[in-house]
């Protein structure tokens, strides 16, 4: 394999493994809530199983070793006679996932030494101890004289097959393949038990048979057709073919043969060398065998393959010892996996469309390509606007031309919306991760917390999703640590001992709204003011006139980030002020609503996308500017009576008893020194971190969605955040409300 190919495979593994690891966390939390959910347990197992196989293939051996034990533990709990996992086991599973995450990072970084070897060893030891204590059968090697698996059934005459189907097929009757071997050839028995989605994955029995044929001579193959339904029930893209037993005569080594299947899941193939013993071949039509202990999973001495003789009871069938070189898993696990496949195939009428839908729903795409596509569509929109507003074309006054341009405009908007839609992802995954955050926080402070999530299907720009994770974690920890009371305190207050935290997402007025609400004690405003005064965040005079909302906002001031009781923000060392900054960097805002004794609600409002802004076009000094509508409270033309000046310089407007400073846009941006009359201008009331003020402009042009263009190195002004190309070719600068005043 070339280096390039190896590197590509490595990257593919890293990408896919990251997704698997993230999902493990979520699945275990969900499993904790529903421990009887076998499907979830199987889903967990499959993810871990895939991770193990891939890790070993890529050479992440430390990860592979750990995941192997983790897989053993999950496999034990999948068995019918295993008890439901208790809280300790769930904790162990979650700890194991944390270790996997850590080891994965170490492997990706090619660290020679693990970042936390002690934690790795401890977790591994705990898993093995748990296995030894609860599941002796999974850890200890099987008895020598008991046939472990159904290889006797696979190749024998009368023993039932382990893969039970409604119409249990008779055992495979095979020719005497041994007699067909030529000098130097070995007989390999390869069992293919492909998953039902084999065609979706681009694989096929024929492909592998041909690859095997290149390694030797195909003597024969036995196809289990028992599960194939009638034509009406058949989905040709789903594989209903059961086990296919292939007999190959080859001079190649076992490793050469196994390499053919390196990209399959472990349970989808088994390769064995069939060796005839000195026993009499009494029945040329059958082959029976037993499997000695699995070499890889054995941790006790004597894990080497063993030979021996066995007589299949009651049949007089010949005895054939099999050198088992099963690469990946114990036979009991293989049987379980085969059973899973059979069950899955049985449920095809229900599952196949779902699987088909899952496989076709998602395409992995580089986000850079998506951004490039979006840029191109943005240019298309601009070009289409040029056409629309072109005076020469308008002068033609041709109805057909006008209609064509109108149609073009509609199609362009449609394309733009669809491309924008590509960037949108459901916030579900981010919300799912928060379950663990709340769980761990609650355990840490010994509180009972019930997290209720809603609106997880709400879509949000992909670039925002990652940036939201930290602020949400922080806000949720805050809610659990400081919002909710202890169970005893809650009962004393007449509340249920279990506290509630709601995590919601919804669209509202062209924005995304995310709310974190708790039914805790609410913000103690007196304490907040006291702390704020102590730290010099506000003066006595200011404190005396502050509204509840303004007091609540104080906890997001920088001075509170290291406070202990009011806003102790432990964990990541991120203060609420950084939460606010993070949200503002996403061009959003965060509001607090709190009621003492009842609880608090943190509301994050974000634009739908970072690439397009919904703005109000305004004119000042013959220039067009855009004010983000998210920042606008209201706009109006003031009357003389509400305008005030201070010492002839500062201008204010009295808006419902609130004095707002007036900021003349032409002055701030140094466009001109003129002073147009305020009563003949428009005031746009906005709000930033420091409060509310009114921007004085010549006129409002209208509301419009525009594609944001970064000014890059050209932007040295804090008052400007970017630009947009208008339909007439004019550039409109987007105002940064934070930097204007």
């Amino acid at each position: 394999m070339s280096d390039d190919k190896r590197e590509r495979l490595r990257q593919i593994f890293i990408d896919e493994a990251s997704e698997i690891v993230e999902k493990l966390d979520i699945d275990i939390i969900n499993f904790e809530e529903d421990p009887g959910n076998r499907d979830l347990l199987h889903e967990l197992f499959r993810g871990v199983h895939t991770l193990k196989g891939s890790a070993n293939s890529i050479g992440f051996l430390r990860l592979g070793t750990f995941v192997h034990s983790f897989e053993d533990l999950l496999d034990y709990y999948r068995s019918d006679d295993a008890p439901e996992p208790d809280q300790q086991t769930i904790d162990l599973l979650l700890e194991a996932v944390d270790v996997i995450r850590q080891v994965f990072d170490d492997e990706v970084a090619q660290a020679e030494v693990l970042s936390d070897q002690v934690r790795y060893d401890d977790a591994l030891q705990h898993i093995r101890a748990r296995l030894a204590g609860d599941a002796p059968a999974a850890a200890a090697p099987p008895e020598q004289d008991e046939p472990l698996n159904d290889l006797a059934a696979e190749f024998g005459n009368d023993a039932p097959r382990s893969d039970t189907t409604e119409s249990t097929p008779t055992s495979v009757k095979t020719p005497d393949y041994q007699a067909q071997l030529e000098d130097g050839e070995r007989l390999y028995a390869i069992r293919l038990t492909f998953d039902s989605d084999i065609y979706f994955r681009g694989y096929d029995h024929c492909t592998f048979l041909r690859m095997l044929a290149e390694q030797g001579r195909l003597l024969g193959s036995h196809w289990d057709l028992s599960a194939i339904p009638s034509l009406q029930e058949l989905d040709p893209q789903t594989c209903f073919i059961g086990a296919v037993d292939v007999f190959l005569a080859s001079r190649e080594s076992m490793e050469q043969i196994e390499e053919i299947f390196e990209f399959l899941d472990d349970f989808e193939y088994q390769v064995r060398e069939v060796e005839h013993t000195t026993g009499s071949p009494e029945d040329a039509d059958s082959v029976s065998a037993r499997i000695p202990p699995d070499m890889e999973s054995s941790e006790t001495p004597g894990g080497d393959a063993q030979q021996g003789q066995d007589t299949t009871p009651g049949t007089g069938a010949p005895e054939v010892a099999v050198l088992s070189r099963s690469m990946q898993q114990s036979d009991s696990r293989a049987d379980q996996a085969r059973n899973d496949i059979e069950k899955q195939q049985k449920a095809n009428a229900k599952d196949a469309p779902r699987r088909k839908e899952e496989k076709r729903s998602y395409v992995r795409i580089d986000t850079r390509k998506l951004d490039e596509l979006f840029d191109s569509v943005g240019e298309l929109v601009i070009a289409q606007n040029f056409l629309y507003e072109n005076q020469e074309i308008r002068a033609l006054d041709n109805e057909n031309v006008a209609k064509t341009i109108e149609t073009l405009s509609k199609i362009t908007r449609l394309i733009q919306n669809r491309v924008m839609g590509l960037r949108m992802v459901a916030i579900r995954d981010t919300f799912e991760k928060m379950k663990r955050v709340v769980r761990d926080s609650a355990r840490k402070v010994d509180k009972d917390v019930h997290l209720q999530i809603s609106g997880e299907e709400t879509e949000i720009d992909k670039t925002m999703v990652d940036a939201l994770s930290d602020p949400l974690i922080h806000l949720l920890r805050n809610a659990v640590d400081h919002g909710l009371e202890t169970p005893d305190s809650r009962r004393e207050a007449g509340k249920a001992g279990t506290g509630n935290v709601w995590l919601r997402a919804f669209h509202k007025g062209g924005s995304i709204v995310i709310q974190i609400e708790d039914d805790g004690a609410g913000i103690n405003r007196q304490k907040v003011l006291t702390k704020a005064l102590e730290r010099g965040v506000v003066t006595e005079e200011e404190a005396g006139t502050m509204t509840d909302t303004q007091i609540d906002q104080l906890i997001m001031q920088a001075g509170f980030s290291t406070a202990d009781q009011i806003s102790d923000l432990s964990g990541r060392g991120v203060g609420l002020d950084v939460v606010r900054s993070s949200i503002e960097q996403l061009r959003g805002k965060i509001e607090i609503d709190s009621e003492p004794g009842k609880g608090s609600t943190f509301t994050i409002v974000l634009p739908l996308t970072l690439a397009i802004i919904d703005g109000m076009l305004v004119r000042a000094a013959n220039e067009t500017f855009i004010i983000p509508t998210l920042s606008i409270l209201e706009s109006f033309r003031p009357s003389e009576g509400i305008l005030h000046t201070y010492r002839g310089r500062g201008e204010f407007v009295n808006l419902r008893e609130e004095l707002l400073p007036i900021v003349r846009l032409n002055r701030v941006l140094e466009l001109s020194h003129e002073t147009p009359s305020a009563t003949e201008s428009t005031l746009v009331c906005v709000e930033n971190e420091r409060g509310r003020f009114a921007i004085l402009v010549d006129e409002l042009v209208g509301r419009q969605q525009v594609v944001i263009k970064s000014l890059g190195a050209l932007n040295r002004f804090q008052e400007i955040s970017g630009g947009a190309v208008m339909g007439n070719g004019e550039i409109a600068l987007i105002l940064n409300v934070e930097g204007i005043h």
Partner: protein
Amino acid sequence: MFEVDGETLNVEIDMSLEEVLELREFLLPRLEYIEAVGVRGVDQAQLATSALLQLLVSLKRSNPDLDITLLEGDSTQLGDLGILYWNWGVSDE
């Protein structure tokens, strides 16, 4: 890839998965009119996908009286794939 000659459906051995899908759709409303299925090109071409085998077996299940050359008897020789033995299951034997 496939054609109907009277009451016989002839399919090519090297049909792709997409063509197998089309064949299924073609067959669903016409099952009662087909009495035999011939597989062509066995000597000249290669079996491209096991999905075709699966479809033929499925067809046989829908109409056990149907004659399908590839599935007659317990086995068949398919060029480079050697001898394929069919295991239909107890109820089908």
